């Protein structure tokens, strides 16, 4: 009688392969996932979907063999070989096609990172342990609580190593944390420059001289309840500074004034009150 932790490994590996093989064979966007994966550079764009589905079929067959009686050590060895193949594939994807998606266990585009390697490593370790397995139903019946806990732990590790699943558990957790206390809450409530620019761009004054402006925003400063914004303008053949006065704490684009100033001669060329 083999040790019970080894005996429940076929259950874990089989369920994992059932999930990933099912997605590869029956997933609605399996074809698209295949074309995004590193298979495209490995076997070519045309053959990628076929190879992708073939891999899925092999995974499903192996899953069925692992889950259903009888138990052969060869099943776990085959799973270990498959897991090693996945590790090699991930290494290839990482080196030869860094921009490609993993395409492993979801149709969601997922770049190959250390988590992908950790996941394949976990499956490999489970499969290797499983080569010493007896029937899993005996082990599960013998140690129901221990076997259940181990399987749940392994499944949790699998999910934690799966970037595809982040949106299901990690993002909600982060959302909850942000809802309890938003990390960006304690900021000052100064009027942002972008807001003054939006007000300026909607104003009559800006429309009137917009055609004369040559530069982007050159500088700005605050004077009590106005924000002053300076641009370079061209007026009657000479370079001038267009000075806009924008209300700082109110949205009143009709109150925006503009002056065209020749700074070299310290002369005001034109003032418009925007009305």
């Amino acid at each position: 009688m083999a040790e019970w932790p080894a005996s429940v490994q076929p259950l874990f590996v089989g369920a994992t392969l059932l999930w990933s093989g099912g997605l590869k064979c029956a997933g609605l966007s399996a074809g698209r996932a295949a074309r995004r994966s590193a298979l495209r550079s490995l076997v070519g764009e045309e053959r990628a979907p076929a190879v992708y589905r073939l891999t899925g079929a092999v995974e499903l067959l192996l899953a069925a063999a692992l889950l259903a009686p009888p138990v052969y050590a060869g099943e776990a060895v085959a799973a270990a070989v498959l897991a090693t193949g996945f590790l090699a594939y991930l290494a290839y994807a990482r080196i030869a096609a860094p921009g490609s998606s993993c395409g492993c266990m979801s149709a969601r585009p997922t770049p190959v990172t250390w988590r992908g390697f950790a996941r394949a490593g976990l499956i490999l370790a489970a499969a290797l342990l499983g080569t010493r397995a007896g029937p899993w139903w005996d082990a599960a019946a013998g140690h129901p609580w221990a076997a259940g806990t181990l399987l749940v732990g392994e499944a949790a590790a699998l999910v934690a190593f799966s970037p595809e699943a982040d949106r299901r558990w990690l993002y909600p957790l982060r959302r909850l944390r942000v809802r309890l206390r938003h990390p960006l809450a304690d900021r000052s409530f100064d009027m942002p420059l972008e807001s003054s620019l939006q007000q300026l761009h909607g104003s009559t004054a800006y429309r009137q001289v917009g055609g004369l402006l040559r530069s982007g925003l050159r500088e700005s400063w605050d004077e009590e309840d106005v924000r002053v914004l300076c641009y370079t303008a061209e007026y009657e053949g000479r370079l001038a500074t267009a000075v806009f006065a924008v209300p700082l704490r109110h949205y009143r684009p009709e109150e925006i004034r503009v002056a065209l100033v020749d700074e070299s001669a310290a002369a005001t060329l034109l003032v418009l009150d925007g009305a």
Partner: protein
Amino acid sequence: MPQPDRRRFLTSAVLGGSAVAGATALGSLAPEAAFAAPPKIKLDPGALDPNFAEGRITGISGSLLRASGSDRTLHRVHVTDGTSIWKLHPTTFDQIKVGDGFYARGVRLPDGSLAADAIWVNIVNLDASIAAIEAARLHLDHNGKRVIGHVVGGRTAAVYGSAPAVADLTRLQVGRHVKVIGAWRPDTNEVDVATVYSGA
């Protein structure tokens, strides 16, 4: 003119009650004037815009920037007193460093250099989704790559939907898609966020 006096002068020019003129002060309103003016842009379809330059700055001498474009074109860009310089803030020439990326718009001079009207240094426009929010930074997923967006006090603004920009970032949410305008920190995956646009 020293800077405080200059600003006081410019402020009094726009806020002082002097000579307010109407729209006709900007020249003739007759369409003939527009037709008589030579067209400003003469470009063949598909030709490169001569009044634009972009690239990484390889050298700065005086007020001249030397740069290498993304297509390996060599650019020389003159910066004048009238040039606007954006580097997260509207800023000054001395803030431009070798290694910065830039986009410049201006007028091509006969010697092939560009007299810049406006330069945007390290500006980036990212379509991303928020993967995590921490104190003073956003983790952004941009085409499967992680980008760190630093929140800059007094600068970073948020636009929710079509509402006016605000400094309040508490309506940003993990998982949301956002557009980020910011300044890249050269040779890193980090940007300083100027404006973040969120759907709601």
